[in-house]
């Protein structure tokens, strides 16, 4: 390169303005710095809210890049049945979505379902670890059992899953209505697990077809994940179907080949998802349905989404009332009720007289479904069996009624205890600092409404047992994922690099590097980062 003249003896030789044609790199401005930017990812609220700890922001970032298979592969790192969860999980992750403060949550469920439905035939992207020679029995093939067996096989165990019925799936098959989770989807996910090495031993009820003691002898470890059963005292202990059903029994019948007989008017007692599922199924069997929650509206534990769907299906939710008396009259259930005063916010206990005078009313029904109480199925021999060192409980059997993903988490945790080492990928969430809303650059995010879920069209007022919600298109998935703020997780947007006034931030394969020879520590990158990925720390700290 031609050496430019940099010293002048005469004004006429000089350029009109001061221009440095040589390099300025000699001036290492990094020596001025007392604060230093460091890239430090934060725990996104959605990932914190997911029982399985799925790295949701990264999954979504891959969708924006249309890397659908890679996105799915990241999900199955933590979740062995993503189509099941994509269809039927309540997605507690969405409840803490930062985007709610801007407009509306990101539709994580719709995105997960989109990915999972595309990859139904795809095997897991990893192979089981070399066989350890150890084997475990898993009792029950619901979400907890499936997740436990998957984790065990992945770590070199042989896992045998015992199922008393003719098909695997546990409550996914027997309880969840098919309008939420199509059985084809469930079968595909079970098929993948089988191919992965999970063995299902069907039509084998432990305690009847096979003895507990034998299991303890044959296997190195046993995980009991037998789920829950309806419990609680019935209003009419002597009555039977078609007049009175227990919630779970009713759902099991609906999901079996023989649909239960019910009258034209159905009352469901209960405040949880079993109650709502029962009512929605009753509507599909051609009856009208009311739900008696026997509690105030805030205490209803069914998911909001379910309640909305139920109301759209003309199911009445009766809250804030108590049963005074009940009887059978002319083959009908008659319940006398009275309205309860609501407990105002801040009040600790209900008023001395909790009833609203004159609020008595009567409801009658041809069929009563009691879905108000559920408890673990573990009893008798199982209880003493669980005291053994190599026997563990998991899922609803261990924790009581929860959700699919909580049950899976419990199954994976039980498997981890069996393996007695932490599972890979281990849950690193505890080590991560939390995403801080103050670190977000709101200027980078405009409003964008949530993608509308496609709903299968049915003739007016008609309801059936096929899935109501359909899978979103690839185009909508990319749009929806574009709404994600990617809280605390770098998605290589280059904003830091663009705004660095010293041009000292550079892209490297896994992120960015700061050239500390020239970074003055101005902190502009930290301010501009849309998603709280960069921290400013004091030099020497």
């Amino acid at each position, binding site marked *: 390169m031609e050496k430019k003249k940099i010293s*002048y003896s005469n*004004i006429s030789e*000089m*350029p*009109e*303005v*001061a*221009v*440095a*044609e040589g390099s*300025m790199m000699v001036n290492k401005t990094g020596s001025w710095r007392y604060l230093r930017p460091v890239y430090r990812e934060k725990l996104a609220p959605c990932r914190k809210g997911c029982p399985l700890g799925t790295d949701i922001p990264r999954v979504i970032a891959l969708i924006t890049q249309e890397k659908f298979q890679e996105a799915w592969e990241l999900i199955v790192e933590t979740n062995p049945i993503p189509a099941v969860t994509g269809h039927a999980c309540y997605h507690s992750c969405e409840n803490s979505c930062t985007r709610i403060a801007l407009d509306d949550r990101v539709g994580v469920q719709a995105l997960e379902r989109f990915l999972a439905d595309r990859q139904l035939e795809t095997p897991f992207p990893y192979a089981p670890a070399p066989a350890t020679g150890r084997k475990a029995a898993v009792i029950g093939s619901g979400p907890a059992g499936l997740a436990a067996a998957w984790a065990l096989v992945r770590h070199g165990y042989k896992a045998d899953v015992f199922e008393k019925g003719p098909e695997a799936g546990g409550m996914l098959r027997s309880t969840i209505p098919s309008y939420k989770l199509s059985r084809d989807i469930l079968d595909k996910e079970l098929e993948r697990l089988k191919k992965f090495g999970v063995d299902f031993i069907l039509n084998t009820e432990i305690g009847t077809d096979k003895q507990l003691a034998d299991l303890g002898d044959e296997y190195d470890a046993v995980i009991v994940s037998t789920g829950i059963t309806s419990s609680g005292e019935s209003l009419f202990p002597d009555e039977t179907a078609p007049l009175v059903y227990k919630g779970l029994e009713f759902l099991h019948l609906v999901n079996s080949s023989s649909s239960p007989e019910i009258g034209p008017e159905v009352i469901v007692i209960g405040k949880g998802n079993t109650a709502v599922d029962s009512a929605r199924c009753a509507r599909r069997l051609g009856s009208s349905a009311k739900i008696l929650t026997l509690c105030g509206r805030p205490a209803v534990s069914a998911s909001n989404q379910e309640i909305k769907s139920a109301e759209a299906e003309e199911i009445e939710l009766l809250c804030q009332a108590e049963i005074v008396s009940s009887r059978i009259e002319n083959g009908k259930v008659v319940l006398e009720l009275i309205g309860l005063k609501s407990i105002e916010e801040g009040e600790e206990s209900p008023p001395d007289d909790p009833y609203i005078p004159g609020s008595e009313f009567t409801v009658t029904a041809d069929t009563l479904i009691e879905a108000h109480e559920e408890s673990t199925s573990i009893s008798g021999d199982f209880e003493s069996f669980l005291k053994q060192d190599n026997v563990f409980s998991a899922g609803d059997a261990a924790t009581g009624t929860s959700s699919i993903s909580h049950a899976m988490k419990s199954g994976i945790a039980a498997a981890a205890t069996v393996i007695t080492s932490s599972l890979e990928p281990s849950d690193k969430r505890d080590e991560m600092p939390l995403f801080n809303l103050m670190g977000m650059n709101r200027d980078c995010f405009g409003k964008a409404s949530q993608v509308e879920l496609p709903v299968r069209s049915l003739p007016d007022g008609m309801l059936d047992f096929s899935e109501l919600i359909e899978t979103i298109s690839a185009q909508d998935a990319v749009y929806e994922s574009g709404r994600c703020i990617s809280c605390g997780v770098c998605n290589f947007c280059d904003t830091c690099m663009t705004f660095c006034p010293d041009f000292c931030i550079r892209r490297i394969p896994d992120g960015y590097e700061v050239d500390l020879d020239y970074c003055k520590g101005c902190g502009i990158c930290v301010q501009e980062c849309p998603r709280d990925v960069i921290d400013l720390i004091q030099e020497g700290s």
Partner: protein
Amino acid sequence: MSKNKDGSETIVITGNHAVSYAVKMARTQVVAAYPITPQTQVVELLSKFCEDGIMDARFIKVESEHTSMASLIGASSAGARTFTATSSQGLALMHEMLHWAAGARNPIVMANINRALGAPWSIWTDQNDSLSQRDTGWIQYYCESNQEVFDTVLQAYRVAEKVLVPVMLVMDAFVLSHTAEPVAIPAQEKIDGYLPPFKPSIKLDTNAPAAYHGLATPDFYMEFRKKLQDAQDKAKTVITQADDEFASVFGRKYGQVELYGSENPDILLVTSGTVTGTAREVIDEQNAAGKNIALLKIRVFRPFPSSQVREACARAGKIAVLDRNIGFGVGGIFAQEIRAALYGHVDVQVQSYIAGLGGRDITPSTIREILSQAETRDENNGESIWVGVKE
């Protein structure tokens, strides 16, 4: 709208909109501005032109005048033809960047609508805002009519891009900015002929990267200052050339100064801005009544047209300078400049009259009062006389 023989169209527009039209027709490429009364309409219309797609420019919305000038320094350094407009406090906020634009030799054109500075708040006209910037290195034009405003924008780009010095076009708040007058808008082809695209000799170029305006040691700084002064000197010739060529294309000519009336008057009244129009009427009326009074309008304030001023003052009996400004601790600013120009060349009494601050009207009777005082007063102590102060 009426079509004229020369292909121009006459429309009735305010001074502010005359600026907007001229900036559009000058094919300005980057506008960055922050709104302030009474300037807002200028950029409001420009933003609409940009929005409507009839002006091919990037309109940068900024959070302050300091940033609007900083943005234009960047855009101009990259070779774009640039424009901004401001007023009063906004211009004051821009002050640091005004020095930079001149030192960086960015041929930016700006319209400043003269508005009095606070405190106390005022939105009305006087010249202290622009005159406070007299040492920033910018060329300054003071305009009398909306036609002159339109024409001066075009001349300003010609001059700025030739000598690489930024130009500030100045006009009175409301009296001109918000007053509608007929303005002949020339055909675009004629303007394109007069004002070819900006082809800068100094330009940021990614193919030949270089750092500009870095630290100049005492060894070199003074030379760059001298070059800016040389450019201002050169501008004196270039301004006249641009005006002459303008006259040959469009048939209108303004000069750096304009002498109205006799070359050897008893009193020579000096004005700038819209007051000039009022003064023309009063002088016609007084001369018809047998007086011998002339008017000197100062249009270009920087570079100061010393030789033209000397020539006009050479045969005058007395000079009365009407200053719509005040240099605190001294007096009227135009008066000082004129005294300095005349010193050692023309020995004549220069009286300084301060009037019309903060938008107080300067009516024909204000001017009559000044002329009457000038006729009888016979002193040259340099002190300014305040006209119309409540006593």
